[in-house]
């Protein structure tokens, strides 16, 4: 086995009496799409929060590309190539789509203590931003204000923001959330294309998407990883069926 790109060991976080992460161990190999599934309240969002640095773990360690990043600040993790998308769309709503993505490009092209030149006329920022927008299917929507875009477009833009930081690894927090059937199909196609270039940790409720995309799946229940393996193994795992998939079948 090669060395994992993302290595999570014994990650623990308690909120009062609730243990949101209970000794989570997880390894994501380079090039892999690793999905994390689990019922609501299983601690998936808390896990993402600890990986991005927004939540400080009580115990455990997060390693990324051979470096211990457990205590690194949010922006520093992004600078090392670990990019996250948000479950609830989190964009610059009073900016245009192009301004949004250009800002993400700017974050990764040196410091921003430039006070004089018009940043909106810098081809070095605008051109990669345009290409990224085209990539996620938003060509022609560059000058639209984010506040006047549809929910589906917001989800596409979320992905563009993440890609524009030229990451090594993506942490995608429910990219399918709230998408219609057609939009879901397009999003799955987009993620499949990204999968060939990037390592991805995907937190998702949409089981069709998970089983269509994932190389490996980890199942979280009550803050613990109860199973981890290939999609076929997870489907066959009795404990998982009882804890999670069974619930869905019963609905």
């Amino acid at each position: 086995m090669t060395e994992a790109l993302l290595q999570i060991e014994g990650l623990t976080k308690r909120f009062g009496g609730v243990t949101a992460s209970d000794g989570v161990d997880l390894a994501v190999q380079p090039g892999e799409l690793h999905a994390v599934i689990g019922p609501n309240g299983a601690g998936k969002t808390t896990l993402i929060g600890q990986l991005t640095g927004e939540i400080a773990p009580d115990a455990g360690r997060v390693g990324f590309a051979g470096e211990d990043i457990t205590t690194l600040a949010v922006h520093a993790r992004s600078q090392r190539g670990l990019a996250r998308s948000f479950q609830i769309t989190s964009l610059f709503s009073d900016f245009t789509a192009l301004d949004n993505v250009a800002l993400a490009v700017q974050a990764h092209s040196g410091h921003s203590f430039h006070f004089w030149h018009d940043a909106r006329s810098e081809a070095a920022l605008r051109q990669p931003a345009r290409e990224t927008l085209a990539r996620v299917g938003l060509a022609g929507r560059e000058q639209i204000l984010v506040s006047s875009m549809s929910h589906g477009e917001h989800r596409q833009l979320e992905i563009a923001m993440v890609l524009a930081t030229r990451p090594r690894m993506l942490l995608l927090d429910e990219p399918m959330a709230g998408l219609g059937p057609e939009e879901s199909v397009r999003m799955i196609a987009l993620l499949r294309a990204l999968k060939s270039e990037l390592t991805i940790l995907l937190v998702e409720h949409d089981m069709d998407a998970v089983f269509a995309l994932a190389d490996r799946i980890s199942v979280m229940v009550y803050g613990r990883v109860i199973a981890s393996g290939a999609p076929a193994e997870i489907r066959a795992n009795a404990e998982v069926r009882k804890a999670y998939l069974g619930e869905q079948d019963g609905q």
Partner: protein
Amino acid sequence: MSAWFTPRNVVVAVLLAFLALVPVYSALTGNAFLMTLFTRIVILAMAATSLNLILGYGGMVSFGHAVYLGIGGYAIGILAHEGIGSGFVQWPIAIGASALFALGVGALSLRTRGLYFIMITLAFAQLVYYFGVGLDRYGADDGLQLYRRSQFADPINLSNRTQFYYGCFVLLVASIYLTWRIVNSRFGLVIQGARSNDRRMQAIGFPTYRYRLICFVIAGTMCGLAGVLLANHTEFVSPAMMHWTRSGDLIVMVVLGGMASTFGPLIGAVTLLVLEEVLPVLIKLVATPIVGSAATRAAEYWQIVMGPLFLLVVLFARGGINGLLVSLRRD
């Protein structure tokens, strides 16, 4: 060409032309009051412009911005009182002191958000205000008279009121231009991004705290320079310069004129300060035929008219007067 010919741009052009001609008008009519009033307006418009940088573009609601007027002003007053009259010494010290103070206040207050930020900036401003009240050597509560304005080399002579006015006017236009350049630069987009969604800014890799801090220092420094001008204009400094109500006035100017707009603070400052002069006269004119001599008393309560006017702008014109002018174009 037509893209430039908008109601907003026409108003701004007329306003700038008017401001540029105030000394001419004043000289022709011998109206010195107008000159004094507009020197004050130009200086406070500069302070409002600096506040707009952090409040409008950066979303940092500083409720203690007038403190920089006080620090800049007191630096001039104290140095003059101690016999150092040269502007070449006074001005850099005044500006440096404002920048340093902004760095300290910003470093602490920018760790907080929302109401806490407002309260901390207010608290620091009040601290300096009471410090000024306690400065017995420099007039304490009563303030300190400047025996002369800052001395520069020939041909610069601040005691020449026309020259001083144009100096202030040029510095105002320069600060508006500088602010415009800053907010559209890489730095400015980071500041605006942090206002819009600070969490996302960090997630895409910006250490926003240091950018916001530098922005806070730039605004404080610019306002400190306005304080330098104000002290030279009134030839007097007192704690009242940095009273919290003055900070409130600056916020009103920015909001009234239009937050996060290039000329909003200028429009707001002119509107507020001109109304302050005009409203009492208007009230007196309107009320005299109705209530007779009591109209003079009524005129003292001009703020009763000012308040609702401000309320209307806040409620119905979210972009302030600037936003109102911009929206005229779409009709």
